Each structure stands twice: as C-alpha cells, then as structure tokens.
C-alpha cells in the first residue's frame, strides 16, 4: 500500500480521536460526563501510529489517558460515550468511566489510573505468550512520568532477563501533571533502557503518524523475534493535565512549545483533509452520543455484581 493511503487511514483515525475529545469538551459543561477526563489532544499521532504498526491481536495495556488508544485500537465509539456517560450501554456498564477504558475484543486491555501500574501487566501477558509459543506481543503504554516509579525498573529488568515479547511505549509529553521532566528525571530513557541491554529508540517527530508507525513496525519486528524494546515518542499535550480546559495562564509552561508543535500537527496543518473526513466522523460521533444519551443509567441491580 502506498504511504498516501496509509496516511489517510491514520489521519482519519487521528481526526476521529480529536473530534471525539472536542465533543467531550463541548459536552463537559453539561455535567453529562461526571468523571475526570485526561485528554490526549495533541498526542493522537502516537496512538494511531503505534496501533497501526501492531497486529490486531497484539495487546495494549494503557492508562487513564487512553481515549486515543481505545479508538486507535478499534474500540466501539458508542460504547465509549456510554461509558463516559456512566450508562449501562458503556463498555463496562459505567463502572469504568474515562479513566478505565478497555476493549478486550480488539486487544485494549485494562487501563489503570495508578501511574505505571499496567507496565508489569504487559510483561506478564508477554511472558504468557512466550511460554505458550503464541506469536503475539504485548505493549505497555505509559507516560514519561511513569518511568520514575520503581516498578518500571523491576519490569525492564524482568522483561530483559526473560526475553519476553513486550514493547515498552513511552509517550513523552515532557510533563507529569505540572512538573517538567528535568526536575523529575536524572536519566535519559534510552541510556537507561540500554543499561538493561534493552534495545530502544526515541522518535522526536511524534506528530508524524507515519514515522511513529514505521518505528513501531521496526520495534515490533524485533520484539516478535524475542526481545523487549523501549520505544519513546516525543509528543505534546495541548490541554490541561485533567479536565477540558487550557492552562497556560498558570504559567507552569509557555504556550510557545505547544504552538510550535501545533505548527506541525497534521490535524491542523492538513486542514483540507480534515474537511474531507469531518462530516462522516461527526455523524459517527453524533450517533455514539445519541446511543449514550439513550442508554439507561445503572442502578441497584448492578451495584454489587462482578465483585469477586
């Protein structure tokens, strides 16, 4: 397939993510979505590039910031909106909400709101694949901040020792809430990973979906051959850490960095293509929202199910 066709496919998905999140922003003041939302606007290229570089049955373990990965992996849009609305039609019947999206039928495994906590899960799934001789890989998706937690060290070491097919995928937006990476990390991810003998790569052009996809394909090929890999993608979070607003007026970061990123963001730069896809995507979203609105809220019958 030509790069152009791939690009259009990726672009369409990335745009879907953005439009979905913009719809969330629009809906938020209505209080129909009563849960913290961690938007991935600005980071869509990572999710679509990575997921397109994987096979459908590869598994992704994600975080509270996973609208993008949910959609890129192929999760149902109506079930997602119903989940955000806290309705029975939601993927998890409303028990999960935005922070815990999952779509096991398309390989998106549990998303956790405890930073770094799903990293070892991906290692465990990969360990299982290896033992069973299954040709699948597991992807741990996490932010730059997550690498500071002790479990990251434990997971890298174990994965390297056991040579399991796991791809460690770091979305480096340079921020953990309002803290910049240099005040949090004395290490660079590449050298750190290398100290465990783990092959790694840093992609600076995280806006470039095709570059992310290529890097993922290459990394995935090595992982399939039987070794872990650390893939770091530089990206940019446009909105506040949690919530639907902007936060430049708090001066913990400048608008410049984000503006520079926007200058390369295909979803902004390629305005024409946006208009090509927008109508059909808006219709999809409208249908999903309508589904959510019509879905009943869970009640006493659901409160105590699925506890054990």
């Amino acid at each position, binding site marked *: 397939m030509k790069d152009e066709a791939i690009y259009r496919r990726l672009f369409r998905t990335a745009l879907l993510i953005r439009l979905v999140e913009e719809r969330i922003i629009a809906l938020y003041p209505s209080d129909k979505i009563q849960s913290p939302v961690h938007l991935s606007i600005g980071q869509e290229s990572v999710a679509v590039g990575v997921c397109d570089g994987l096979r459908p049955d590869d598994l992704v373990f994600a975080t509270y910031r996973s609208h993008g990965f949910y959609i890129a992996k192929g999760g149902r849009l109506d079930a997602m909106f119903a989940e955000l609305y806290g309705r029975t039609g939601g993927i998890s019947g409303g*028990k999960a909400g935005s922070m815990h999206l999952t779509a096991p039928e398309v390989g998106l495994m549990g998303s956790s709101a405890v*930073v770094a906590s799903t990293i070892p899960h991906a290692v465990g799934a990969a360990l299982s694949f290896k033992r069973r001789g299954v040709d699948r890989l597991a992807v741990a998706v996490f932010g730059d901040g997550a690498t*500071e*937690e002790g479990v990251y060290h434990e997971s890298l070491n174990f994965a390297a020792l056991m040579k399991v097919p796991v791809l460690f995928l770091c979305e480096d937006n340079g921020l953990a809430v309002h803290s910049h990476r240099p005040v949090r990390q004395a290490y660079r991810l590449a050298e750190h990973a290398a100290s465990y003998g783990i092959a790694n790569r840093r992609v600076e052009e995280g806006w470039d979906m095709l570059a992310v996809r290529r890097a993922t394909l290459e990394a995935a090929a090595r992982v399939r051959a039987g070794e872990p890999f650390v893939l770091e993608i530089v990206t940019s979070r446009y909105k506040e850490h949690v919530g639907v607003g902007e936060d430049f007026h708090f001066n*913990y970061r400048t608008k410049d960095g984000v503006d520079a990123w926007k200058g390369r963001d295909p979803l902004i730069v390629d305005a024409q293509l946006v208009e090509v896809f927008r109508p059909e995507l808006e219709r999809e979203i409208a249908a999903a929202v309508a589904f959510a609105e019509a879905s009943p*809220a869970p009640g006493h019958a*659901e*409160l105590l199910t699925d506890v054990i």
Partner: protein
Amino acid sequence: MSIATVKPISQGARILSYAGALLETMDAALASHANAFIMGQGVDDFKGIFGSTTGLAEKYGAARVFDVPLMEEGMTGVAIGAALVGDYPITTHIRADFSFLAMNQIINLASKYRYMFGGLMSCPMLIRIVVGRSWGQGAQHSQSPQATFAHYPGLTVVMPSSSQAILDMYPAIINRHPGPVISIEHRLLYNLDFTVSPSEKRVPLTSYVAREGSDVTVVATSVMVLEALRAAQYVQDEAGISAEIVDLNSISHPDWDLVAASLAKTGRLVIADTSWLEYGVAAEVCRQLVVRDPRLLRQPPAMLGMAPAPCPTAKSLEDIYYPSQHETVDAILTQVKGEGHGIALPVERSMTEGYKRFRGPF
C-alpha cells in the same frame, strides 16, 4: 459555603476553609520548626495540593517545599531517613490510594522503628493522604484506608473532620508527637468553610463529642461527621430526636470510654464511616463496646459505609454506593423509633450535593 456550626460564633471566631486551615498549619510548621519540610508530587505547583500548600515554596524556598518524581515508596523512605536525623518531614499523596505504593515503608519501617530499636530510633513525620469522592473518582481514587493503617501499632492515624480539628491537631502532631502520623483528609471537605475559634480547647489526637444528645449515639469519621450533624438537625426538627454525635477523629487512639459513656446514656448506636464496614472502623467500634459490656447495645446498631464493592464511576451507582443523607436520617430514626417510623425522609442525597457540587476535574 458555610457549615452548620454547633455553637454561636464566639469571641475571636472566624471563618476558615479546610484547605485554609491546612495551609495555615503547614505555614506554621515551616515557620516554627527549622527542620520541617514538605515534599510531594505537586506541592510547589499552582494547585498546591488543593490549596493546602500554595505559596509556601515561594515563601520558604525550594529546599523546604519541593516537588518529587513519581516515587511513593522512595519518597517515604527519604522522609524516614530525614526524620531519623532530626528533620520533620511532611509528605503528601493527592489520593490515599497512592499510599499503598508506600505501604512497605509506612508499615514495615516507620511504624516499627522506635520499638524495634528499643527507643533508639524514632521517625516523627506527617503523611497527609487525601480521600477522593464524587465526580467519578472510580475504584482507584476513592479509598479510605484508616482501618488498614490503624491495625498496625506504632502508627497514629487521624481523620480531621473540620478546620478546627486541623488547627487543634496539626501543631500538636508536628511539634510534639514522637512518631509517624497518617492524617487522612477528605477531598470533599477541602472547599468547605467552617467556623474556627482559638479558644476551643479540644484535647488533640483523640475523640470528642461534636453534638450532645440523649436518644441515640452516632459515631462518625471525617466527612460522615458532617453528614451526621446534618441528619441530627433534621431528626431534631422533624421528630424531636436528640442525637449525640461522637467524632472519632483519632482512628488509632480513639477515646473509647467517651464512646461507651455515650452508649451508656443512649443505648442506641449508628456508626458512619467513610470506608467499607467489613474489617473497618465499624468493626472496631463494636469490639470496643462488647469488650466493655455487650449490654451497652440495647439493639443491633446501624452502620453506614461504602457498599461492599470497589467504587463504581457512574454517578447513578456512586449515589447508591455511598450512604446518602436519606439513609443516615433513616438509620437514626429507625434506631430510635423502630422500623416503620413513618417520618418523612429528606430529599437531599449526600454531601456531594448537599454542601457542595464537587465538579472535578480532580
């Protein structure tokens, strides 16, 4: 919004939010204790742990108030090490759930150091953890682990339910308490205003009567004290019932005699806690009472806590997951008048809607 105060505003009283009380005590700690310092994720940012540390980094410098990487276990270990050489560390977790990552340092180290070394070591320090509730906090941002911590000797566990409780307790903890203290603060309280008075001489680090009454005893913790106060007012107005409310306040070292004395007077008991009932505060209250005398309880007590499941995110589920004002009032009425008391219940559902529309994002 202002909370019902039990007494009329007295001499020197003023209005102070929970976050404001925290900020004042944090400020005072740094001002009065040269070796006190505050560390935690985001303590120096513009949100300042929901307003409880805002501006302190600027005032006292980055050596005394500083951000840390994501490293709950490591941070707690760093705090212990600093405490061992004479510092007074204050650490924060914006959700109590994250303190589970520091459980080893808290339980295996901090709580045991003084005893394990026969008094030669001690690590006085304050660990502030915030319980989340409402606005879809979900299963991992909503836990209230007081029973977990209070099970382990060596730890002191408190749950301040008002600005006054913070003003009364925190200076005593920071300036005089010899060991590690875990203070479980409640996110829903942060933005509430309370009347505080310098003259109130509450004995710190133990329990107290938050409202006097004679018909029924309500033992409550944290935000449930406020729920109970509201319910007490309602049953007073609607049914002439006089409810006594004991704020347990200290979870590790409550004044059990105070609780028993109240029971001896009323014979009827409602327990209202912020966590699960099973192996929770409600259980220890029952134990302490029956050890004294099972006849203190004239009938089975009523208990209010989280439903026996992880916390669901959907609002409709959350509303029935936590005890509502409706249920709190009903529990009190049923204790006093029996099932089928026939008294109309209030419509307001819970703290979430009653005092504040908590709208997140966090």
